């Protein structure tokens, strides 16, 4: 190869050309922005909703009401952390709520009937959640069953186990029990913050760090994006998948604790809609159901949006059925935005 002095005949294929092309239309620029920061659209929706509901009824933005919204978000918000991990791997988990109720009921029952100490009861709740998610994870990675079917089955199984175990009872623990610590609160100014809300926030920080700043997070995104490509690149995709289910199990255990604080013990019928509500939060939060795209903070915004709509529409005197309708429309809109973002081209 004798290199000629000036072979600069590479036509427009440099990145600077691409960024020129990128600025073609405002829609195109927005598409690229959302592609980089998928949590921006739920943030936008949340801000608009808060402004509108505050204008409609001034009670909405009172400290008391906003504190209530935060408390109502805590259970689904924490559960959505686990759900986000599974959906990032291009899976879906219909059983997270059922596992949460089972774990919280077992923990509450241990304290109520056997006088078990709170740390031991919490440890058992963690064990139940992680083992339950290990079953899901092993069925998905080893037997290679689709996550939808696996978790549909385990959702029914865990719900049934809870009901059989509970024999129709609910458990109310004495105030002051450590299991109810998540329902206790302190004041920041006029805002009443429960420890459950704090626990949820800590969970988000820890898992967001793991997703953003560690190799595990990158591998989770890569596996969800294109599992075969990730495997060829040298990632042990089975291990990554299984780890997503196990970490989700930890998040479910945290949710179970927060749930116990919300219902003052355990109620086998308390989390009936929690499975779908967690999926709703993740999807509204901008995480793609096709895997590999999305951010954890979006799921928190998604969970907040659902509660803000519930609360705001109620304060505006709108029939509760319209709240359900509004959430349904939000889900469809979120998935449509995701499809649009995924078509991004330079």
């Amino acid at each position, binding site marked *: 190869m004798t290199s000629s002095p000036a072979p600069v005949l590479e036509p427009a294929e440099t990145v600077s050309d691409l960024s020129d092309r990128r600025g073609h239309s405002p829609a195109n620029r927005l598409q690229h922005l959302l592609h980089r920061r998928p949590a921006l659209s739920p943030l936008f929706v949340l801000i608009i909703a808060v402004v509108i509901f505050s204008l409609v009824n001034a009670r909405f933005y009172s400290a008391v009401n906003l504190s209530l919204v935060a408390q109502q978000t805590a259970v689904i918000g924490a559960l959505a952390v686990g759900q986000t991990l599974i959906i990032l791997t291009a899976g879906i988990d219909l059983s997270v709520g059922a596992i949460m109720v089972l774990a919280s009921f077992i923990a509450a029952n241990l304290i109520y009937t056997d006088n078990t100490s709170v740390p031991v009861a919490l440890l058992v709740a963690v064990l139940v959640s992680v083992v339950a998610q290990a079953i899901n994870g092993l069925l998905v990675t080893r037997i290679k069953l689709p996550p939808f079917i696996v978790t549909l089955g385990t959702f029914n199984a865990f719900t049934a186990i809870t009901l059989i175990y509970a024999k129709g009872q609910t458990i109310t623990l004495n105030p002051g029990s450590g299991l109810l610590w998540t329902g206790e609160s302190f004041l920041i100014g006029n805002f009443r913050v429960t420890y459950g809300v704090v626990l949820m926030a800590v969970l988000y920080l820890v898992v967001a760090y793991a997703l953003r700043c560690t190799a595990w997070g990158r591998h989770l*995104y*890569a596996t969800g994006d294109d599992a075969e490509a990730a495997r*060829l*690149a*040298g*990632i042990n995709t089975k291990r990554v998948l299984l780890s997503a289910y196990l970490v989700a199990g930890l998040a479910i255990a945290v949710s179970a604790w927060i749930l116990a604080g919300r219902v003052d013990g355990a109620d086998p019928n308390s989390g009936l809609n929690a499975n779908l509500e967690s999926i709703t939060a993740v999807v509204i939060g901008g995480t793609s159901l096709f895997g590999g795209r999305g951010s954890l903070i979006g799921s928190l915004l998604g969970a907040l949006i659902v509660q803000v709509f519930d609360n705001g529409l109620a304060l505006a005197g709108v029939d509760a059925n319209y709240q359900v309708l509004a959430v349904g429309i939000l889900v469809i809109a979120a998935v449509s935005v995701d499809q649009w973002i995924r078509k*991004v081209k*330079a």
Partner: protein
Amino acid sequence: MSGTMTPVLQAKGLVKTYGRVVGLSGVDLELYPGEVLAVIGDNGAGKSTLMACLSGAQIPDAGTIQVDGQPVRLRSTADARRVGIETVYQNLAVAPALDIASNMFLARERRRKGPLGSVLRMLDTKAMKQEAAAELANLGISTLQDVDQAVETLSGGQRQAVAVARAAAFGSKVLILDEPTAALGVRESGQVLKLIRELREKGLGIILVSHNMPHVFEIADRIHIQRLGGRAGVITPSEYSMNDAVAIMTGARRLDEPSGTRSQPTGAS
């Protein structure tokens, strides 16, 4: 290539069978540093099996593989990577949603020094970006400047460049490229071939599996022809024509017969 040079990669008598199907029936292959060895062959000739054995994706039933004269056992793709054999797969094996730097360091991420890295396992994103940019510049890939860009926003040729750059970076010795131009247009193919030439100048041994005869004859130093699970021969583009290569590949001609004296097979088209 002189016979006194040590091949960077040498395979002897590779055998691989799948039940009663013979994938490879004792194949030899030599690759020297700084050369492009094309591997051609009809479908089912054993190209893919041969590449799978050399990249650690399959374990041969018999035969030896040497890297720089040292015998190696390749039980996984990770083993192959450890001894400096990198493979670029036809489907690229990149994560589209991740950026260029993350893709180049996928499955070999660098952690921060100190407790941030060892306890909190924090990635050294800044160092990885700098190193990725430096490797791209070193490989002469000028079309990829912004290592923050998601791979899915790149053109097909640029994605191929990312995949090749990842394989060529970090001190690898042997590069196996499986149909690198198959999905590309004319101009983008040209860019990839240019990149392959530059990597050859840097002394890498490159195995190019391709069906594209013009590309093979444009870039290869030697051509290894697979046929029916064995090596039908090794030719050079200067001494043989494309028609000769196809004839040997399909069995219409044997390598030791000079092309002029070949007797016309009866009943052949």
